[in-house]
């Protein structure tokens, strides 16, 4: 059983992850590279950055500079081996983006398949698609309402606070959707609805000031592209997981 779960998740995760990597190369990575030009320009003017950092916890991001991340948890075991390594722009960076997409795909497929095996009435491509849409709502749509996907160079609140809110929102939305979809009891359905709403009443951590030099048009385009990519990724991941599982059923 364990081998079968890992096999199906690996197959669906690789396919959806590779599709995601291709879509990233076409739609989001060009926007990230464009934003990094503005990001580097804004870093060259430390006055702006200090003014922001002094006001509240907001910080300017600087990807691929290494130094900017020292405060984010210090140097762990991996960092003591690899130092401030970052992939070279170009093929190497694309390869690592593809690798991380596949890993995320594999990981999400394992989680999705586990909950489907626990709760789904049947497992095939079409039910998988529905569960995949649920996954998309839980880890993309709901968190995006409070923390829209961001380009490098934006000001943002403390990383840990945002990650905590993100994880809480994803978990609450997933559980809420499951309660609404699978429980007959009206009280449980209402608690599911409350779970969907609660994270947004609590509110996501935000900086008090906007300091991005990245044009808003670029940011807007990126948010749309990111959500579309996510939707395609989850639709593929869910339906492939269901389909591959059903294919193995007769054996």
């Amino acid at each position, binding site marked *: 059983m364990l081998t079968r779960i890992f096999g199906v998740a690996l197959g669906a995760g690789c396919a959806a992850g590779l599709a995601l990597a291709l879509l990233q190369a076409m739609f989001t990575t060009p926007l990230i590279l464009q934003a990094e030009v503005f990001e580097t320009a804004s870093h060259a003017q430390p006055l702006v950055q200090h003014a922001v950092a002094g006001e509240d916890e907001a910080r300017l991001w600087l990807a691929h500079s290494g130094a900017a991340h020292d405060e*984010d948890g210090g140097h762990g075991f991996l960092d003591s081996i690899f130092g401030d390594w970052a992939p070279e722009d170009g093929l190497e960076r694309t390869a690592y983006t593809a690798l991380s997409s596949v890993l995320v795909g594999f990981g999400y497929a394992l989680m999705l398949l586990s909950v489907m095996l626990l709760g789904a009435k049947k497992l095939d491509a079409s039910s998988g698609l529905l569960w995949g849409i649920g996954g998309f709502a839980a880890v993309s749509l709901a968190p995006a309402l409070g923390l829209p996907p961001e380009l490098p160079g934006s000001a943002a609140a403390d990383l840990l606070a945002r990650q905590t809110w993100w994880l809480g929102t994803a978990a609450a939305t997933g559980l809420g959707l499951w309660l609404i979809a699978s429980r007959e009891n009206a009280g449980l359905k209402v608690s599911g609805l409350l779970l969907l709403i609660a994270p947004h009443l609590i509110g996501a951590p935000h900086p008090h000031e906007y300091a991005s030099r990245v044009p808003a048009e670029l940011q807007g385009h990126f948010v749309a592209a990111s959500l579309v990519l996510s939707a395609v990724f989850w639709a593929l991941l869910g339906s492939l997981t269901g389909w591959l599982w059903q294919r193995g059923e007769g054996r």
Partner: protein
Amino acid sequence: MPSAVSSQSLTSRAALLPTLIFTALFGAFLVYGAGFAHSNVLHNAAHDSRHALGFPCH
């Protein structure tokens, strides 16, 4: 009415629970490593994917 088939599948689901908890946690570990870990190296390698998937980054 709940048939023998569905009650049997309920039993097998309960028996599967430890396996499913393990696979779900393993999946969460992978997503955490690629999307959340603060390590510089993991961050830099997964940077573009983190942004594209809307994980809080930086």
